[in-house]
C-alpha cells in the first residue's frame, strides 16, 4: 500500500521515444497523450445502451429476423422514450435484458447475427 501511494505521488515524468517517420525522438509525454484511449472498432452486431436508463417495450424475440432500421426496443432515458433500431440485417441471437430493467451506459442489450452476403 505504502509503495502504491509513493508511485502515485511520483510526478517526475520520464523520457520516452516518440517515433515519427522512422526517426526516434527522445521527449517527455503529456497527460493527455498518456491517457488517450485506444481506438476500438465498433461492432454493429452488439447493441449497447448509449445512455443509462430503463428498458421499455421490447419489440423482438430471439430468433427473429430483423432488417436495418427495424425497431428493437425502447430505452427510457433523459425523460425520453428512445427507439433503438437495428443497424443491420440479421437474426436476433440473444436478448440480455427484460422490460423494466435498469441498464447502465454501454451495457449489452441485444446481440444480432448478421446475414452473410448470400443470404
Amino acid at each position: 500500500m505504502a509503495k502504491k501511494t509513493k508511485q502515485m505521488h511520483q510526478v517526475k515524468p520520464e523520457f520516452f521515444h516518440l517515433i515519427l517517420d522512422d526517426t526516434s525522438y527522445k521527449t517527455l509525454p503529456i497527460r493527455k497523450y498518456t491517457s488517450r484511449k485506444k481506438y476500438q472498432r465498433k461492432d454493429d452486431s452488439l447493441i449497447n445502451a448509449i445512455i443509462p436508463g430503463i428498458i421499455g417495450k421490447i419489440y423482438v424475440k430471439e430468433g427473429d429476423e430483423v432488417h436495418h432500421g427495424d425497431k428493437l426496443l425502447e430505452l427510457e432515458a433523459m425523460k425520453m422514450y428512445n427507439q433503438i433500431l437495428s443497424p443491420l440485417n440479421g437474426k436476433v441471437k440473444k436478448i440480455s435484458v427484460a422490460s423494466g430493467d435498469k441498464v447502465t451506459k454501454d451495457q449489452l442489450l441485444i446481440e444480432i447475427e448478421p446475414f452473410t452476403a448470400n443470404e
Partner: protein
Amino acid sequence: MSLKQKTLDLKKRMREALEGGGTQAIEKQKSGGKLIARERILALLDPKSFHEYDLFVEHAAKDFDMDKKYLPGDGVITGTGTIFGYPVCIYAQDFTVAGGSLGYMHAKKITKIMDHAMKMNVPLIGINDSGGARIQEGVNSLAGYGEIFYRNTQASGVIPQISVILGPCAGGAVYSPALTDFVFVVDKISKMFITGPEVIKTVLGEEISMEELGGAKIHAEISGNAHFYAESEQECFEQIKRLVSFIPWNNTRRALPFVKKEPNTKNYNIEKIFPSDPKQPYDVRDIIRAVSDDSDFLEVQERFARNIVIGFGRINGETVGFVANQPLYLAGVLDVDSSDKAARFIRFCDAFNIPLVTFVDLPGYLPGIDQEHAGVIRHGAKVLYAYSEATVPKITVITRKAYGGGYIAMCSRHLKADFVFAWPTAEIAVMGPEGAANIIFRKEIMEAEDPEKMRQQKIKEYKDKFANPYVAAAYGYVDAVIEPRETREFLVHSLEISINKNEKGPFKKHGIPPF
C-alpha cells in the same frame, strides 16, 4: 438639512451598501480561503485608484417576495481604476450577496461598465464568483447573460478582456469568460462547467467531483479553457498585473515600451542549452529567455498542450509574442490542442499590434487515430489561417527540424513571414532523413546485398544533401543563415526595421477561420 447632515446621510447609506451580504456571509466566504469582492478589486488595482459606481443600484424584481429583499449593489461591484497607472474598467461579482446571482440590474451594471470600457478604449477585467442566473428573475437573467455575451464579442479585438474565475462559474455563465482573451483560475477556488456533477450523475450515471470535472487544474491542463493558473488569489492578481504590463490598452495602440535590458546570457547560453542533434530534447523556453530582455518571459497556457510554447516577452523594450515548438514534450509536434493554443494566441497578438517571433523545431504533425478523429485537419488549419491572416511583423527562426506540413505552418516565408532566419543546424525538408531515405531509395535498399548498410549509406547521403538550411536558402525561402548567438541581434534589427509595417489584406467583412 444642512450639507453636513446630508453628508452624514450619504455616509450612512454607503455604509449599509458596503456591508455586502452581511457578517455571516462574509465569514463564510473568508473561511473558504476567498477574499470578498471589494477586497479583490483593491488587491488588484493601484492603491487608492479604485472608483466605484452604481453602489446604490437596487434590483427590480417583484416576484417570489423579491420586492421585500434588499441586495446591496445587486451583488456586483463595478468601477474604474489603474494597474501600474494603466486605466482599466473592472467588475467583481459579490458572492456574499444572494450568491452573486445574476439578475436584471446586476447584468445592467456589468453591461454599463463594459460599454464604458469600449467608449474609453481601455481593458476590461471581470471577476466571476456567482451561483449563476437568479432564478426568481426568470427570463430577465437570461437576457442579462445574452447582453454580456454580445458585448464580449463586440469588444473582442478592440480592447483586451480578462476574466478571473474566483468561485463557481457554471452553466451559461461560463460563456462570458470563454469569449474573453485571458482566463485566470486559482486552485481549489475556481470551478467552471456547463453541467455539474449532479446532472452528470443523474443523466449518465457517472460520478465525478467538482474539482475533477471543472477545477482550476482541469481547465489549465486538460480543457485549455484557462490561460493562467495560480495557487492563491494573491498570486493570481500578480499574474494579471504582469500580463497587463505586456499588452496595449486597445487595438489602436502598441504596448507601452519598457527600458531595454540585455538577456542574462550567463544562465541562458544558447550554445550550452541547444543540442544540435534533432532527436535530443531541450526546453525551448530557455532559448526564448536567451533572446528576450532581462530573460523575462510570461508564458501563457503553460500547462495546456505543452508541446507548443506561447507567451510574451520584450525585445529592445518592445513587447513581442513568442510562439515556439517545444521539443521537450512530444518532440514539439503540432496536434489538435497545440494548434488551437497557438492559433488563438497569434490572433490576439495580431489584433493588438504585438509582433510575432516564432521558433521552429518540429518533426510534423502527431499521427494517431484519436488525432484524426478529433479533427487535426481543421484544428491544424487554424495555425495556417492565423499566421497567414496576421499583418503584424512576423519573424521566424528555424533552429532545427522543419519538416513537411509543420515547416509550412510555423510562419514560413510562404505564409508571408517578414524575416526568416535559420541556424546552421536547421533541417528544412519534406521529412527527416530516415523516413525520406526509406521511401526514395526503397528499391536500392531492398535489392542491396546488405540492406542495412545500404540504408545507412542512403540516410547519410540524404542528410548531407538535404538536411540543412542551404537548399531553402538557395531559393530565398530563408533570408539569412545565422549563428545561434547572433539571434538576438537579428531580432532586434528586424523588429526595428518592421516598426512601420502597414500591411492590409483584401477588403472583407470578415474571414471564415476553421473555428
